[in-house]
């Protein structure tokens, strides 16, 4: 019982407060923001003279021409993009998990995770547009075009290019989440057993492995769904414009000089929130239906042995997708050095440094501030995540010691899913309310408020990324150390921290990347006083010049890549004499 007494002497009670504090930090702004959005939607916004509750604003909202189509567009593109991304990821894992191809693509996709959505979208648009790169390469040689054909590819009325743009960015995210989940189950051997029973490779994975990991990737999928339904930046680049999707429309109202449109914007935000809730419910119902159908297929004993052509098709799709992203990013890199470059020239007629040089000294202060905010936010997020997870580990310890058998699944405090709320609630639906709250507290435009706002969005990703590794830690190491007479704090510092250093640093790099891509929180909470790479990029994208956008896109990519490199290199350097800790 000695170790147990030691454990009870740990700062466990203080630790137990950490999840509460963390949730308060995260959810306070979300709820306050929602209140600040919902009240005006029902007519209450004293500064604009709205003091009466009622449904009039919703009537006005419904009378907006084209609203139905905007809503349909949001729902259709968001849900379809999510389904396709999910299917691609699942089929790719099923077809190629455990092969060289899989490892190779996994490595290629990881850096894409840090690429900001809007950067990928702009690169993709340049690739596929009628005057885009692909057409330029083949014109006029093969196509005969000396001027671009007048056909609609981007901004198409059904939102196909928007869905493709979203899929390009969501597949890497979902794939990495799936890979993380795969580490928690015995995927290899499960698949091998199914193979030995005569199932085809894909069928073996789909029936044996997928049901085990699905519960763990459900949350990321729902986050993707919520994001796709309310995306603004990607939609501005790729979505139809007559009318635009709902989120674009309501942001337009929010930014309109006619302040009475604020009410309409708030009502639109409530509608947007409703759409997300509806889509999530649809997804959960769909799960049940698919599960029922899948059970029939599985119990029918169908083994799908001849899956070779299906596997090749999946591989080709994924390779095309990855190439599209890389070519898009490469295109923007070339633009950042481009002189004059017009259709049908395949490459610019000269490369110049001017696009980079004209930013001069400003660039360094922008990079510095961006990195500082991202470092602080991700560092806080890592500390809070580690403390929450350590608390969870200790509770699990006590839970087991209480005589109950070890649970078949990792036991989790049920409340922590609330951490993901900021990912499920559309940003536009609560950030204006947060802004008002911060002004009331006289905290607006302060550097630490900005870091806090970033923390709200960074923490869920950090927690998601660190959680699995942390929970998988074998606590027999801890028990051994405690038995040898070391205190719990020393044990944690000397044993657990070094062993978990790599996942901790990677989680921090993930948080760093997320922070760099944040636009709305930076501009709204920072009071516009803090220039980051993303606010600059978005302000410049107003000017439309791909050269300047290209410069910032490159920087947005390089900074997170640096962070990931450090996260990989540091443990390797520190533990160069300890082969066991190297991964």
């Amino acid at each position, binding site marked *: 019982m000695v170790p147990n007494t030691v454990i009870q002497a740990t700062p466990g009670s203080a630790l137990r407060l950490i999840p509460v504090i963390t949730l308060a930090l995260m959810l306070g702004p979300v709820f306050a923001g929602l209140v600040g959005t919902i009240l005006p939607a029902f007519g209450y916004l004293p500064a604009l003279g709205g003091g009466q509750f009622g449904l009039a604003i919703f009537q006005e909202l419904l009378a907006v021409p084209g609203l139905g189509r905007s809503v349909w567009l949001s729902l259709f593109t968001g849900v379809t993009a999510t389904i396709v991304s999910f299917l691609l990821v699942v089929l790719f894992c099923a077809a190629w998990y455990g092969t060289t191809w899989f490892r190779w693509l996994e490595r290629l996709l990881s850096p894409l995770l840090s690429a900001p959505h809007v950067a990928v979208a702009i690169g993709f648009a340049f690739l596929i547009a009628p005057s885009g790169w692909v057409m330029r390469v083949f014109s006029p040689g093969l196509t005969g075009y000396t001027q671009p054909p007048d056909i609609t590819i981007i901004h198409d009325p059904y939102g196909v290019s928007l869905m493709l743009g979203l899929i390009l960015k969501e597949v890497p995210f979902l794939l990495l989440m799936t890979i993380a989940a795969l580490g928690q189950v015995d995927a290899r051997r499960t698949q091998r057993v199914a193979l030995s029973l005569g199932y085809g490779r894909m069928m073996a994975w789909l029936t044996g492995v997928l049901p085990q990991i699905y519960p763990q990737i459900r949350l990321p999928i729902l986050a993707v769904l919520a994001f796709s339904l309310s995306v603004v930046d990607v939609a501005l680049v790729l979505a139809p414009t007559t009318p635009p999707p709902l989120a674009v429309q309501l942001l337009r109202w929010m930014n309109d000089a006619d*302040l009475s449109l604020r009410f309409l914007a708030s009502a639109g935000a409530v509608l947007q929130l409703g759409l997300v809730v509806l889509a999530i419910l649809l997804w959960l119902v769909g799960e049940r239906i698919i599960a029922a159908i899948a059970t029939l297929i599985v119990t029918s004993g169908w083994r799908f042995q001849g899956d070779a052509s299906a596997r090749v098709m999946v591989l080709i799709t994924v390779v095309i997708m990855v190439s599209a992203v890389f070519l898009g990013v490469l295109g923007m890199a070339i633009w950042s050095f481009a002189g004059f470059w017009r259709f049908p020239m395949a490459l610019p007629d000269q490369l110049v440094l001017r696009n980079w040089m004209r930013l001069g000294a400003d660039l360094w202060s922008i990079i510095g501030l961006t990195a500082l905010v991202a470092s602080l936010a991700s560092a806080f997020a890592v500390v809070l995540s580690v403390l929450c997870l350590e608390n969870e580990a200790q509770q699990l310890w006590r839970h087991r010691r209480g005589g109950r058998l070890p649970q078949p699944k990792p036991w989790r405090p049920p409340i922590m899913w609330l951490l993901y709320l900021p990912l499920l609630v559309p940003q536009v639906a609560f950030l204006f309310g947060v802004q008002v709250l911060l002004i009331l507290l*006289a905290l607006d435009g302060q550097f630490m408020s900005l870091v806090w706002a970033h923390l709200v969005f960074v923490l869920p990703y950090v927690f998601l990324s660190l959680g699995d590794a942390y929970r998988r830690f074998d606590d027999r190491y801890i028990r051994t150390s405690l038995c040898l007479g070391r205190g719990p704090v020393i044990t944690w510092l000397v044993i657990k921290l070094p062993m978990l250093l790599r996942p901790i640093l990677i989680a921090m790099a993930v948080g760093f990347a997320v922070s760099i891509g944040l636009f709305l929180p930076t501009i709204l909470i920072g009071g516009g006083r803090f220039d980051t790479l993303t606010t600059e990029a978005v302000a410049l994208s107003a000017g439309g010049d791909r050269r300047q956008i290209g410069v910032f896109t490159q920087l947005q990519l390089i900074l997170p890549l640096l962070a990931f490199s450090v996260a990989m290199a540091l443990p390797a350097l520190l533990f160069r004499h300890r082969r066991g800790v190297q991964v």
Partner: protein
Amino acid sequence: MFSLPPFRIRITAEHARSARLILSRSIALRPVSFCQALMVMAMVAVFASSYAPGVKADDIDPKDWDAVLDQATEQEVFWHAWGGETRINDYIAWVGDQVRERYGITLRHVKLSDTAEAVSRVLAEKQAGRDDQGAVDLIWINGENFAAMKRQGLLFGPWSEDLPHYALVDTVGKPTTTVDFTVPVDGLEAPWGMAQIVFYYDTARVPAPPTSMIDLAAWARENPGRLTYPQPPDFLGSTFLKQVLYEVIDDPQRLQQPVSAGEFATLASGLWAYLDELHPVLWRDGKVFPQNGAAQRVLMADNEIDIAVSFSPSEASTAIADFELPDTVRSYVLDGGTIGNTHFVAIPYNASHKAGALVVADFLMSPEAQLHKQNPEIWGDGTVLDMDALSAEEQAAFDALPRGVATLSPEALGTPLLEPHPSWMELAEDEWVRRYGTGQ
């Protein structure tokens, strides 16, 4: 907020929807009118209590310029200005250097992607009861945003006519310096620069550009898919509509008067006939439109279209210098003239550093700052000053300014047409969205 109007546009012509505030159109048009009317009344009541035009509590008197200069020293002025154009940002940085040297003021450029963000900011502060120590000291503004802020008592002033350099402003020859999109300026904002509609085209592809809106439609029929315009209610797109209205309406003078929805249906029928005929031969069959002037310029750069509309006479020259457009691009104006206006700077009612903001606003109107701004190698934005009020030396400096290859001379630009009354634009935008903006 991600794709925003090209600079001058945002600044220059934000006209239209101020009408909503001015006319409270909803009272006549919408089922919710009563509720909105209540809001408007409540708004007036709320603001009447807190908004006192004139000198504010912090004892700034623009008439006592020496005291203002004293107070301004060491102040840090936060200037919220659209930041979408590198050369404008560079110019603002130059202003920052100048006011630091001359007055000891530290100027911080808060780069907006949409001027309405600054308006939101001030509104949010008002909502939270912060009536001094606001975050915004100076805003680059005009038209719609100005009308909204003036209407809601979010502005400090009057002050602009008391500034020393205001005496040099050409208020007679440039009437838009005193009436911002038909809304009287009343000393609440200081004129900063001039803008006017021009068209630019590629001489390599269009030997003789059409010089009226009617001819433009004829040209589009002969060259299908090679013309488009920014999608209303983007104000450049809306200005395109107004430019059409000037030609298709029987009596252009009528545009200066307010118009009701009923009259508009009859008077503006020519506009819809024009567009119904034009749209099928536009780029993408008139089903997709660029979202703003900058997006339209990218189409020109990509060789997707041959003629584009702009609110900045120097836009084409700038774009050529930046490798965006081929050096065969040139600008022109229509035979019947084109619409023009002025952009300004204003100070919010709760600005923290009003003295500093006043000094910066005054410096912006100085001959030196105006000269530097009009230089196309710096920015190329037209001056608001009266040449006759300047010294011979200063006049010579203005005359000696180089012009970009594709920039028209002031003579070639001619006298700008006045902006129509806002009610025209508002009705045109709503009807445009109803007819063409809702798909299928």
